[in-house]
């Protein structure tokens, strides 16, 4: 333990350096305080991408390191967004309502203000009363606490139930997917208290910051996202570097053996599951103010599966792989589906990428799974010269440990 953390994890240092450089470059080119080479909307896109990278790190921790393919982390991400969105929406509506009522001849009572806010927010779902889950919406501190607590508690309860009954492998994946679907369906209801399928909107407007241009605000959020990503990366690297990291990798490779060695497998899994849910919640709380709107469709199971796709393409079992995957695939997605990619005329048919990007993504995902289980991150092994010995037969990927296909069959 004589060597420092960074000496043992040179990749963390490199990553932080790259992130700092990137942040600096974007700042210098931003409209707000730089040259203006990067538009405000693109700064927002980059900020959102950093948040997606953060949740991808969480996914990599739980899947790449602990071997649990969770199809529910985007639900935690969305929950974090909902929690911060409640405060944003409440505080902003309160400011608007107070301003409009100040002109009345008789000053409004507190109850009248709250009723008016309720009518403003819940009018779209035909209600005007505040549901109990909005009890803390007027306090930023409490609502920020909820960003951490709500996803954390949900993950704790769900994880405890699932791990306790030794649900593993694909069963656990399906169970987490069911949880995500249940949550999304619940939020789709109008009487769920979170405005049904309208979701929460207008989140890009910070309360009390009307005078500040969006260019500044988006840059602030970009910095915050970069900071969160950096801290999240360091936390994840620290978690997986020590003895704890060895144990969770052990659980991934052979759960029964770790259990027989006397470790409380369920406890370790539960800790990782809850920790990653909290990270996902924080990422969501930073993402949705930049996106401006959140609705239950964001929580649908497909979103969590895309998260798995990013991590798989980027490369599981290495933190920078997850970041690269999330950044590359989500930016490519934006580029292709935004209609910016040039269409390819084939003479008899024109490939319009808005229609064909999903097909390409699906197919490339299959190809990556089949031929490059290490993903994009695996390319770095060629530079560092960390090539495994040729043991004949295909790599089984991180899930089956270090076994090669032909060894596994024996």
């Amino acid at each position, binding site marked *: 333990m004589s060597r420092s953390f960074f000496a043992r994890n040179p990749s963390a240092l490199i990553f932080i350096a790259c992130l700092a450089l990137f942040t600096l470059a974007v700042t210098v080119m931003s409209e707000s305080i730089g040259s203006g080479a990067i538009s405000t909307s693109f700064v927002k896109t980059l900020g959102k991408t950093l948040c997606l990278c953060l949740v991808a790190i969480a996914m990599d921790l739980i899947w790449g390191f602990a071997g649990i393919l969770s199809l529910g982390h985007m639900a935690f991400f969305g929950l974090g967004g909902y929690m911060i969105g409640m405060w944003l929406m409440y505080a902003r509506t309160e400011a608007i309502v107070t301003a409009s009522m100040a002109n009345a001849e008789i000053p409004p009572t507190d109850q009248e203000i709250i009723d008016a806010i309720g009518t403003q927010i819940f009018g779209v779902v035909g209600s005007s009363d505040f549901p109990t889950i909005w009890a803390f919406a007027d306090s930023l501190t409490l609502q920020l606490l909820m960003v951490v607590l709500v996803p954390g508690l949900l993950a704790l309860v769900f994880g405890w139930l699932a791990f306790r009954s030794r649900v593993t*492998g694909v069963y656990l994946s399906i169970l987490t997917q*069911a949880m995500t679907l249940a949550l999304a369906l619940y939020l789709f209801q109008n009487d769920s208290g979170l405005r049904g399928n309208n979701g929460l909107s207008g989140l890009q407007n910070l309360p009390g910051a009307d005078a500040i241009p969006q260019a500044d605000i988006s840059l602030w959020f970009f910095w915050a996202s970069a900071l969160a990503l950096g801290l999240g990366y360091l936390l994840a690297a620290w978690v997986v570097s020590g003895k704890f990291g060895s144990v969770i990798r052990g659980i991934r490779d052979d759960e029964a053996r770790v259990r027989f060695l006397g470790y409380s497998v369920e406890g370790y899994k539960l800790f990782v599951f809850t920790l990653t849910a909290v990270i996902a919640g924080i990422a969501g709380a930073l993402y949705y103010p930049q996106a401006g709107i959140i609705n239950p469709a964001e929580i649908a199971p497909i979103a969590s599966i895309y998260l798995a796709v990013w991590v798989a393409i980027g490369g599981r079992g290495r933190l920078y792989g997850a970041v690269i995957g999330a950044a590359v695939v989500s930016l490519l997605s934006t580029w292709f589906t935004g209609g910016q990619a040039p269409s390819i005329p084939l003479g008899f048919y024109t490939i319009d990428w808005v229609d064909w990007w999903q097909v390409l993504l699906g197919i490339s995902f299959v190809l990556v799974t089949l031929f490059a289980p290490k993903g994009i991150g695996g390319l770095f092994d060629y530079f560092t010269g960390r090539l495994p010995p040729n043991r004949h037969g295909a790599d089984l990927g991180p899930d089956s440990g270090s076994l090669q296909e032909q060894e596994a069959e024996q």
Partner: protein
Amino acid sequence: MTRTIFAALAAWMLCVCTAMAQDSPIQQLLQEHRTLIEKSSRKSIEPAIDALRDSGLPEAQAVLEQWQAKALWQRKADKLFFFGEKIDSKTYRLLDIATGEIEGEFPKKELKQLKPNSGIRSMIGAALVQFQLMADDPAKRVEALDAIQRDPAPEHLTALKGAIETEVDPEIRARKERLVRLLTITYGRDDAERISAIESFSGDLGVDARGALNPLVATTRTAAAAIPDDANVAKRLKPGSEDFSEAEAYALLVSSNLAPAHISASEKRMALQDNIEGGSVGGVPVAQLDTDEARERAYVALAEAGTVPATATEAEVAAALASHIFFDRYAEPSEAITDAAAKALGSINTQVGLNQTADLALDALSLASIYFLAAIGLAITFGVMGVINMAHGEFIMMGAYTGYVVQQVIPDYTVSILVALPLAFAVTFAAGVAMERLVIRWLYNRPLETLLATFGISIALQQLAKNIFGTQARPLTSPAWLDGALVLNDVVSISYIRIAIFVLALIFLGVFLFIMKRTRLGLEVRAVTQNPRMAASMGINPDRINMLTFGLGSGIAGIAGVAIGLYAKVTSELGSDYIVQSFMTVVVGGVGNIWGTLLGATMIGFLQKGIEWMNPSNTLAAQTYMIIFIIIFIQFRPRGIIALKGRAAGD
């Protein structure tokens, strides 16, 4: 000369006609009751109408109809009755009532129009109903019954009673008898007759019976100083109880003008706003008016000054509530009848409840068979081979689109369904085999990655379907003989399409069991499932078996797709709507066992319908609670309802 002859001829004709008109029995009958008809009073006219109705003369109906339509005229000269047709404002053409022949044209002043008042017209109408009820054409009779049922009146009762004896059609006769009982409930002569009619409907499921009984037990909420003697009170209410709050009670008093209106907060606010004087209201500065107490203080001050009406104080409200009695009052005055009606409705509701349960069970069964159909293919690939196929939903979709394409080519729906079923199987079988060969067999040792790879295929297939067929829903029309529903009674019914799906599910269960237990392929599949290496050393080719098994599972998904497409719209998201439920079905039922899948589907189907029944407005909530239930269920039986034991369980 000629003129004379014509005149003579005309005179002669007139004589003959007159004689004929006077001789016809219907004219004689009318003449018999002439004084009553001329008097045209509601009180005394009945014998005349009855006589016409019961005369049995063929013209009676026409006469009544014309009379009701104010088209019956009397010639002042000889008091005979004719049908009149207007030529111009002064002249009318008269027609003989018996023969319909033209009598001649007469100036209006020589004639008298019979103008029955509305009371008489409705009596005539009731008499006419009887003619319709006894019409020769059964369709006319049914039409008359429908009309009565739509708009019943007291006089229909007698008409109906008179029309039962002669009825020959047993079905219409039964309907008439039922309608008599229904009308007796409301218009019966005395309480005893009405009560026996009410009791005869005890436990009846018909909507019409409930429709006739419900008005009897309808109540109005009333407030009064004391209960009136003639009131039939359903229930006394106590203000402040759970279903009758004090605010409601006071509002009732206000609306019955028994108490002064309570002034609401917003009205007070308006009143205060109107009375701002020099920055204060009633001595309270405006700036302080941001609490309810301050506003109350200001309002009371204004009320004392007399500028605004005083609001009722708490004590006055309490006193008003205490000095009045609140009760629900039946519109029907007779207590015996309301009691009987309430009792009959109670037994009807029990019956309806039982039948609704049966209906719900049928619904649940059909939902279960849909889940079973969707899951059975998955049970094969996931349960038998241990391969997660996230693209299973897309195979279902592929089957449904195959059905749609076949319908575009073959316009006859029956034939096209018969072609579509095997074709869907063939298409998805081929797709499944291709997927197994190209992707899945490389990943047998990596279950999590199978999940992801098949998911990649799933999003690619979904987008492909969108590119080819567009995003709008495509119809898959069922043949005409599957339209409609099997109606057991007014409550229980099930559409034929759901029965067909249920039958299809049963057939699949049979086919699956037959293949697995009775064929060479099934034997080899089971062998490979249990121990691939041992099976291979016995001369079975595991690769080939895996391929065929996967193809079989996918093919069944295709057929399920056609079945599901028949009652749901075909979209590219069709499959993903079912995929999670299908996985749940397999996991809950227990992996690797078809009976488990059956049990799982049944459980999920019944559970979902059960939860929907508890909260019918919200199917989303039902799905949410169902998934939560399943997550908890997995806690207690992690390996499903039917868990494999021993070596077959693997790991």
